[in-house]
Protein backbone atom coordinates (compact mmCIF):
# COMPACT_ATOMS: atom_id res chain seq x y z
CA UNK A 1 0.00 0.00 0.00
CA UNK A 2 2.70 2.46 0.92
CA UNK A 3 4.58 3.95 -1.92
CA UNK A 4 8.23 4.23 -1.23
CA UNK A 5 10.40 6.99 -2.54
CA UNK A 6 11.80 4.54 -5.13
CA UNK A 7 8.33 3.66 -6.35
CA UNK A 8 7.44 7.24 -6.58
CA UNK A 9 10.42 8.15 -8.72
CA UNK A 10 9.52 5.39 -11.14
CA UNK A 11 5.91 6.45 -11.19
CA UNK A 12 6.57 10.16 -11.42
CA UNK A 13 6.92 10.51 -15.21
CA UNK A 14 3.86 8.36 -15.78
CA UNK A 15 1.85 10.40 -13.31
CA UNK A 16 3.02 13.62 -14.85
CA UNK A 17 2.00 12.44 -18.31
CA UNK A 18 -1.38 11.29 -17.16
CA UNK A 19 -1.89 14.56 -15.38
CA UNK A 20 -0.86 16.52 -18.47
CA UNK A 21 -3.50 14.72 -20.48
CA UNK A 22 -6.10 15.52 -17.83
CA UNK A 23 -5.25 19.19 -17.96
CA UNK A 24 -5.18 19.27 -21.74
CA UNK A 25 -6.62 22.34 -23.27
CA UNK A 26 -9.82 24.30 -23.18
CA UNK A 27 -13.08 23.19 -24.76
CA UNK A 28 -12.41 25.43 -27.70
CA UNK A 29 -9.07 24.10 -28.86
CA UNK A 30 -8.98 20.67 -27.28
CA UNK A 31 -9.42 18.21 -30.15
CA UNK A 32 -11.17 15.78 -27.82
CA UNK A 33 -13.95 18.09 -26.70
CA UNK A 34 -16.60 19.49 -29.00
CA UNK A 35 -19.43 21.33 -27.31
CA UNK A 36 -22.06 20.29 -29.81
CA UNK A 37 -21.42 16.60 -29.06
CA UNK A 38 -22.60 16.80 -25.45
CA UNK A 39 -25.77 17.61 -23.53
CA UNK A 40 -24.99 17.37 -19.86
CA UNK A 41 -27.35 16.35 -17.11
CA UNK A 42 -27.22 14.56 -13.78
CA UNK A 43 -28.92 11.55 -12.31
CA UNK A 44 -29.69 11.44 -8.59
CA UNK A 45 -30.58 8.09 -7.16
CA UNK A 46 -32.47 8.93 -3.96
CA UNK A 47 -32.41 5.39 -2.47
CA UNK A 48 -28.62 5.47 -2.58
CA UNK A 49 -28.11 8.80 -0.81
CA UNK A 50 -26.91 8.32 2.77
CA UNK A 51 -26.69 12.03 3.66
CA UNK A 52 -22.96 11.96 4.40
CA UNK A 53 -22.37 15.49 3.05
CA UNK A 54 -19.39 14.45 0.93
CA UNK A 55 -20.80 16.17 -2.16
CA UNK A 56 -21.32 19.45 -0.32
CA UNK A 57 -17.79 19.46 1.05
CA UNK A 58 -16.32 18.41 -2.27
CA UNK A 59 -18.20 21.18 -4.08
CA UNK A 60 -16.97 23.79 -1.63
CA UNK A 61 -13.39 22.56 -1.96
CA UNK A 62 -13.48 22.39 -5.75
CA UNK A 63 -15.31 25.64 -6.39
CA UNK A 64 -14.37 27.93 -3.56
CA UNK A 65 -17.97 28.36 -2.48
CA UNK A 66 -18.40 31.12 0.14
CA UNK A 67 -19.55 30.15 3.63
CA UNK A 68 -23.29 30.07 4.12
CA UNK A 69 -24.04 29.67 0.42
CA UNK A 70 -24.37 26.46 -1.54
CA UNK A 71 -23.96 25.29 -5.10
CA UNK A 72 -25.18 21.94 -3.92
CA UNK A 73 -26.78 20.94 -0.67
CA UNK A 74 -28.65 18.01 0.87
CA UNK A 75 -32.11 18.16 2.40
CA UNK A 76 -33.43 15.51 4.73
CA UNK A 77 -37.13 14.92 4.44
CA UNK A 78 -39.31 13.40 7.11
CA UNK A 79 -42.81 12.55 5.99
CA UNK A 80 -45.16 11.34 8.68
CA UNK A 81 -47.48 8.66 7.33
CA UNK A 82 -49.93 10.17 4.80
CA UNK A 83 -49.17 13.77 5.62
CA UNK A 84 -47.34 14.53 2.39
CA UNK A 85 -48.27 18.19 2.34
CA UNK A 86 -46.33 18.87 5.53
CA UNK A 87 -42.93 17.28 5.29
CA UNK A 88 -40.40 18.27 7.93
CA UNK A 89 -37.26 19.28 6.13
CA UNK A 90 -33.85 20.12 7.49
CA UNK A 91 -30.57 21.00 5.87
CA UNK A 92 -28.13 21.99 8.64
CA UNK A 93 -25.35 23.98 6.99
CA UNK A 94 -26.48 22.48 3.70
CA UNK A 95 -25.88 19.00 5.08
CA UNK A 96 -22.16 19.68 4.84
CA UNK A 97 -21.36 17.81 8.04
CA UNK A 98 -24.07 15.21 7.67
CA UNK A 99 -27.29 14.95 9.66
CA UNK A 100 -28.23 14.11 13.26
CA UNK A 101 -28.99 10.45 13.87
CA UNK A 102 -32.57 9.23 13.89
CA UNK A 103 -33.66 6.52 16.31
CA UNK A 104 -35.06 3.28 14.91
CA UNK A 105 -38.51 3.70 16.51
CA UNK A 106 -39.10 7.11 14.93
CA UNK A 107 -42.36 7.37 13.00
CA UNK A 108 -42.71 8.14 9.33
CA UNK A 109 -40.20 7.85 6.55
CA UNK A 110 -36.92 9.61 6.05
CA UNK A 111 -34.90 10.22 2.94
CA UNK A 112 -32.23 12.55 1.63
CA UNK A 113 -32.57 14.81 -1.40
CA UNK A 114 -29.37 16.26 -2.84
CA UNK A 115 -30.05 19.51 -4.66
CA UNK A 116 -28.07 21.44 -7.22
CA UNK A 117 -28.68 23.62 -10.25
CA UNK A 118 -30.97 21.76 -12.62
CA UNK A 119 -29.22 23.17 -15.69
CA UNK A 120 -32.63 23.75 -17.18
CA UNK A 121 -32.98 23.70 -20.95
CA UNK A 122 -35.56 26.51 -20.68
CA UNK A 123 -34.12 28.18 -17.66
CA UNK A 124 -35.97 31.13 -16.13
CA UNK A 125 -32.70 32.54 -14.79
CA UNK A 126 -31.07 32.99 -18.18
CA UNK A 127 -34.36 34.32 -19.55
CA UNK A 128 -34.45 37.24 -17.14
CA UNK A 129 -30.76 38.23 -17.20
CA UNK A 130 -30.84 41.78 -18.59
CA UNK A 131 -27.32 41.80 -20.04
CA UNK A 132 -26.54 38.27 -21.17
CA UNK A 133 -24.25 37.47 -18.25
CA UNK A 134 -25.81 34.07 -17.65
CA UNK A 135 -26.51 31.60 -20.39
CA UNK A 136 -26.79 27.97 -21.34
CA UNK A 137 -23.77 26.65 -23.22
CA UNK A 138 -24.14 24.63 -26.44
CA UNK A 139 -23.45 21.54 -24.31
CA UNK A 140 -26.29 22.31 -21.93
CA UNK A 141 -24.68 23.85 -18.86
CA UNK A 142 -26.04 27.05 -17.31
CA UNK A 143 -23.11 29.32 -16.48
CA UNK A 144 -22.49 32.82 -15.15
CA UNK A 145 -20.01 35.16 -16.81
CA UNK A 146 -18.68 36.77 -13.67
CA UNK A 147 -16.78 39.39 -15.60
CA UNK A 148 -20.00 40.61 -17.17
CA UNK A 149 -22.60 40.12 -14.43
CA UNK A 150 -23.65 43.37 -12.79
CA UNK A 151 -25.13 41.68 -9.74
CA UNK A 152 -28.78 42.72 -10.06
CA UNK A 153 -29.97 39.41 -8.55
CA UNK A 154 -32.93 39.15 -10.92
CA UNK A 155 -31.77 35.61 -11.82
CA UNK A 156 -31.70 34.71 -8.12
CA UNK A 157 -35.35 35.73 -7.88
CA UNK A 158 -36.25 33.84 -11.04
CA UNK A 159 -34.79 30.46 -10.06
CA UNK A 160 -37.59 28.28 -8.68
CA UNK A 161 -35.11 25.98 -6.93
CA UNK A 162 -33.08 28.47 -4.89
CA UNK A 163 -29.86 27.41 -6.61
CA UNK A 164 -28.39 30.86 -7.13
CA UNK A 165 -26.91 33.40 -4.77
CA UNK A 166 -24.93 36.60 -4.94
CA UNK A 167 -21.30 35.93 -4.07
CA UNK A 168 -20.69 38.16 -1.04
CA UNK A 169 -17.15 39.11 -2.06
CA UNK A 170 -17.38 39.06 -5.85
CA UNK A 171 -20.85 40.71 -5.77
CA UNK A 172 -21.98 38.76 -8.84
CA UNK A 173 -24.36 35.86 -9.30
CA UNK A 174 -22.84 32.48 -8.50
CA UNK A 175 -24.08 28.93 -8.92
CA UNK A 176 -23.22 25.36 -9.82
CA UNK A 177 -21.21 25.16 -13.05
CA UNK A 178 -21.66 21.40 -13.22
CA UNK A 179 -17.88 21.55 -12.75
CA UNK A 180 -17.56 22.74 -16.30
CA UNK A 181 -13.78 22.91 -15.85
CA UNK A 182 -13.81 19.17 -15.11
CA UNK A 183 -16.40 17.72 -17.45
CA UNK A 184 -14.77 19.38 -20.46
CA UNK A 185 -11.56 17.51 -19.56
CA UNK A 186 -13.21 14.13 -19.38
CA UNK A 187 -13.56 14.10 -15.60
CA UNK A 188 -16.75 13.89 -13.61
CA UNK A 189 -17.97 16.66 -11.29
CA UNK A 190 -16.43 17.05 -7.82
CA UNK A 191 -19.70 16.01 -6.16
CA UNK A 192 -19.97 12.85 -8.25
CA UNK A 193 -16.29 12.07 -7.70
CA UNK A 194 -16.73 12.35 -3.95
CA UNK A 195 -20.10 10.58 -3.65
CA UNK A 196 -19.33 7.23 -1.99
CA UNK A 197 -22.51 5.46 -3.05
CA UNK A 198 -22.97 6.56 -6.62
CA UNK A 199 -26.12 8.45 -5.67
CA UNK A 200 -25.03 11.22 -8.03
CA UNK A 201 -24.00 10.48 -11.58
CA UNK A 202 -23.00 12.91 -14.25
CA UNK A 203 -24.68 11.99 -17.52
CA UNK A 204 -24.28 13.02 -21.12
CA UNK A 205 -27.63 12.72 -22.84
CA UNK A 206 -26.06 13.01 -26.29
CA UNK A 207 -23.71 10.09 -25.68
CA UNK A 208 -25.57 6.92 -26.75
CA UNK A 209 -23.25 4.79 -24.59
CA UNK A 210 -23.93 6.72 -21.40
CA UNK A 211 -25.45 4.37 -18.81
CA UNK A 212 -28.17 6.94 -18.14
CA UNK A 213 -30.13 5.73 -21.15
CA UNK A 214 -30.39 2.21 -19.77
CA UNK A 215 -31.29 3.62 -16.36
CA UNK A 216 -34.04 5.89 -17.68
CA UNK A 217 -35.54 2.93 -19.55
CA UNK A 218 -36.08 0.93 -16.40
CA UNK A 219 -36.77 3.45 -13.65
CA UNK A 220 -39.38 6.01 -12.68
CA UNK A 221 -37.59 9.31 -12.71
CA UNK A 222 -38.84 12.79 -12.00
CA UNK A 223 -37.51 16.33 -12.13
CA UNK A 224 -38.11 18.91 -9.40
CA UNK A 225 -41.15 21.19 -9.77
CA UNK A 226 -42.16 19.90 -13.21
CA UNK A 227 -45.05 22.40 -13.16
CA UNK A 228 -42.47 25.15 -13.65
CA UNK A 229 -41.73 23.76 -17.13
CA UNK A 230 -38.08 24.71 -16.93
CA UNK A 231 -36.74 21.71 -18.83
CA UNK A 232 -34.77 20.67 -15.75
CA UNK A 233 -32.00 18.19 -16.52
CA UNK A 234 -31.29 16.82 -13.06
CA UNK A 235 -33.25 13.58 -12.91
CA UNK A 236 -34.28 12.05 -9.61
CA UNK A 237 -34.90 8.35 -9.26
CA UNK A 238 -37.62 7.35 -6.81
CA UNK A 239 -38.47 10.91 -5.82
CA UNK A 240 -41.20 11.21 -3.19
CA UNK A 241 -44.19 13.40 -4.02
CA UNK A 242 -43.62 15.53 -0.93
CA UNK A 243 -40.36 16.95 -2.26
CA UNK A 244 -40.40 20.56 -3.36
Amino acid at each position, binding site marked *: *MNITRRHMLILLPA*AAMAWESVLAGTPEDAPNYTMSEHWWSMLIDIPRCIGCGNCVRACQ*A*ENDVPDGFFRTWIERYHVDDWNMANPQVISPDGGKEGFPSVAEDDKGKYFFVPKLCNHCADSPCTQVCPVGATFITPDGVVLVDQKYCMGCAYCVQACPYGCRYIHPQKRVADKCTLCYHRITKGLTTACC*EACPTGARQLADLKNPNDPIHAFLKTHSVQVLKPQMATGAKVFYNDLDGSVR
Partner: protein
Amino acid sequence: MSIFRDAGHLFRLAGVYLAGTLIFLVVRAVVVPHSFGQYGHYRGAAIAEIADRPLHFAGHQACETCHSDIAQTKAGGMHAHVNCEACHGPLANHAADPSIDPGKPDVATLCVRCHAVSAARPRAFPQVDADQHSGGVPCNTCHQPHSPAIAAGGSK
Protein backbone atom coordinates in the same frame (compact mmCIF):
# COMPACT_ATOMS: atom_id res chain seq x y z
CA MET B 1 -40.30 77.25 -46.42
CA SER B 2 -41.57 79.16 -43.42
CA ILE B 3 -42.73 75.94 -41.78
CA PHE B 4 -39.09 74.92 -41.72
CA ARG B 5 -38.19 78.22 -40.16
CA ASP B 6 -40.87 78.10 -37.50
CA ALA B 7 -40.19 74.46 -36.69
CA GLY B 8 -36.45 75.01 -36.83
CA HIS B 9 -36.01 74.44 -33.11
CA LEU B 10 -37.60 71.01 -33.45
CA PHE B 11 -35.06 70.05 -36.09
CA ARG B 12 -32.32 71.24 -33.78
CA LEU B 13 -33.71 69.03 -31.03
CA ALA B 14 -33.88 66.10 -33.45
CA GLY B 15 -30.25 66.85 -34.36
CA VAL B 16 -29.20 66.68 -30.72
CA TYR B 17 -30.91 63.31 -30.31
CA LEU B 18 -29.47 62.01 -33.54
CA ALA B 19 -25.97 63.02 -32.41
CA GLY B 20 -26.57 61.27 -29.07
CA THR B 21 -27.67 58.11 -30.84
CA LEU B 22 -24.62 58.17 -33.12
CA ILE B 23 -22.26 58.59 -30.17
CA PHE B 24 -24.01 55.69 -28.45
CA LEU B 25 -23.61 53.46 -31.51
CA VAL B 26 -19.91 54.27 -31.76
CA VAL B 27 -19.34 53.63 -28.04
CA ARG B 28 -21.29 50.40 -28.34
CA ALA B 29 -19.18 49.17 -31.25
CA VAL B 30 -16.01 49.86 -29.29
CA VAL B 31 -17.05 48.64 -25.83
CA VAL B 32 -18.98 45.41 -26.48
CA PRO B 33 -16.62 42.42 -26.09
CA HIS B 34 -15.63 40.81 -29.38
CA SER B 35 -16.77 37.32 -28.51
CA PHE B 36 -20.26 38.56 -27.52
CA GLY B 37 -22.80 36.72 -29.65
CA GLN B 38 -20.39 34.00 -30.76
CA TYR B 39 -22.68 31.21 -29.50
CA GLY B 40 -25.65 33.20 -28.23
CA HIS B 41 -26.48 36.33 -26.32
CA TYR B 42 -23.41 36.19 -24.12
CA ARG B 43 -19.65 36.56 -24.14
CA GLY B 44 -18.41 33.42 -25.90
CA ALA B 45 -14.96 33.71 -24.33
CA ALA B 46 -16.57 33.22 -20.91
CA ILE B 47 -17.03 29.50 -21.65
CA ALA B 48 -13.29 28.93 -22.09
CA GLU B 49 -12.53 31.07 -19.03
CA ILE B 50 -14.81 28.95 -16.87
CA ALA B 51 -13.43 25.72 -18.36
CA ASP B 52 -9.95 26.92 -17.40
CA ARG B 53 -10.60 27.13 -13.68
CA PRO B 54 -8.17 25.06 -11.60
CA LEU B 55 -8.93 21.50 -10.51
CA HIS B 56 -8.86 20.45 -6.86
CA PHE B 57 -10.06 16.87 -7.21
CA ALA B 58 -7.70 14.92 -9.45
CA GLY B 59 -10.21 12.19 -10.26
CA HIS B 60 -9.71 8.49 -9.53
CA GLN B 61 -8.25 7.85 -12.99
CA ALA B 62 -5.24 9.98 -12.08
CA CYS B 63 -4.84 8.21 -8.72
CA GLU B 64 -5.00 4.79 -10.31
CA THR B 65 -2.17 5.47 -12.77
CA CYS B 66 0.28 5.31 -9.85
CA HIS B 67 -1.61 3.47 -7.15
CA SER B 68 -2.68 0.52 -9.28
CA ASP B 69 -2.08 -1.85 -6.35
CA ILE B 70 -4.68 -0.08 -4.25
CA ALA B 71 -7.03 0.06 -7.18
CA GLN B 72 -6.73 -3.71 -7.42
CA THR B 73 -7.40 -4.22 -3.72
CA LYS B 74 -10.39 -1.96 -3.90
CA ALA B 75 -11.85 -3.56 -7.02
CA GLY B 76 -12.67 -6.78 -5.22
CA GLY B 77 -14.19 -5.26 -2.09
CA MET B 78 -17.23 -3.45 -0.78
CA HIS B 79 -15.64 -0.06 -1.44
CA ALA B 80 -15.03 -0.81 -5.13
CA HIS B 81 -17.20 2.12 -6.19
CA VAL B 82 -15.97 4.58 -3.60
CA ASN B 83 -13.53 6.89 -5.35
CA CYS B 84 -10.18 7.61 -3.73
CA GLU B 85 -10.89 11.27 -3.04
CA ALA B 86 -14.24 10.51 -1.40
CA CYS B 87 -12.20 9.61 1.68
CA HIS B 88 -8.79 11.13 1.01
CA GLY B 89 -10.13 14.53 -0.02
CA PRO B 90 -9.14 16.70 -2.98
CA LEU B 91 -5.61 15.81 -4.09
CA ALA B 92 -4.98 17.47 -7.43
CA ASN B 93 -1.90 19.10 -5.96
CA HIS B 94 -0.55 15.68 -5.02
CA ALA B 95 -1.32 14.35 -8.52
CA ALA B 96 0.53 17.24 -10.09
CA ASP B 97 3.44 16.93 -7.69
CA PRO B 98 3.62 13.50 -5.97
CA SER B 99 6.18 14.77 -3.48
CA ILE B 100 3.35 16.65 -1.75
CA ASP B 101 2.27 14.46 1.14
CA PRO B 102 -1.48 13.87 0.96
CA GLY B 103 -1.69 12.91 4.64
CA LYS B 104 -3.91 10.17 6.01
CA PRO B 105 -7.62 10.51 6.68
CA ASP B 106 -8.71 10.28 10.30
CA VAL B 107 -10.73 7.07 10.61
CA ALA B 108 -12.37 8.27 13.82
CA THR B 109 -14.45 10.83 11.95
CA LEU B 110 -14.31 9.40 8.46
CA CYS B 111 -16.03 6.02 8.77
CA VAL B 112 -18.97 7.14 10.89
CA ARG B 113 -19.82 9.88 8.45
CA CYS B 114 -21.27 7.19 6.23
CA HIS B 115 -21.73 4.25 8.56
CA ALA B 116 -23.12 5.72 11.80
CA VAL B 117 -26.52 4.17 12.35
CA SER B 118 -29.52 6.35 11.55
CA ALA B 119 -33.06 5.37 10.62
CA ALA B 120 -32.90 8.15 8.05
CA ARG B 121 -30.41 6.12 5.99
CA PRO B 122 -31.47 3.54 3.44
CA ARG B 123 -32.11 0.20 5.16
CA ALA B 124 -29.73 -1.83 3.01
CA PHE B 125 -26.78 0.42 3.71
CA PRO B 126 -24.35 -1.05 6.30
CA GLN B 127 -24.62 0.95 9.52
CA VAL B 128 -23.21 0.49 12.99
CA ASP B 129 -23.51 2.10 16.37
CA ALA B 130 -19.79 2.75 16.66
CA ASP B 131 -19.59 2.71 20.48
CA GLN B 132 -21.48 -0.54 20.75
CA HIS B 133 -19.81 -2.09 17.75
CA SER B 134 -16.16 -1.54 18.66
CA GLY B 135 -16.11 0.13 22.05
CA GLY B 136 -13.80 2.85 20.86
CA VAL B 137 -11.32 0.64 19.00
CA PRO B 138 -10.46 2.39 15.70
CA CYS B 139 -12.31 0.93 12.71
CA ASN B 140 -9.16 0.09 10.78
CA THR B 141 -7.96 -2.23 13.54
CA CYS B 142 -10.25 -4.86 12.06
CA HIS B 143 -11.42 -3.41 8.76
CA GLN B 144 -9.05 -2.63 5.94
CA PRO B 145 -10.55 0.57 4.50
CA HIS B 146 -9.76 -0.30 0.87
CA SER B 147 -11.55 -3.62 1.24
CA PRO B 148 -13.48 -3.48 4.49
CA ALA B 149 -15.06 -6.95 4.72
CA ILE B 150 -13.25 -9.05 7.35
CA ALA B 151 -12.11 -11.97 5.24
CA ALA B 152 -11.64 -15.05 7.45
CA GLY B 153 -14.03 -15.93 10.24
CA GLY B 154 -15.06 -12.34 10.96
CA SER B 155 -18.28 -11.91 12.92
CA LYS B 156 -19.58 -9.36 10.39
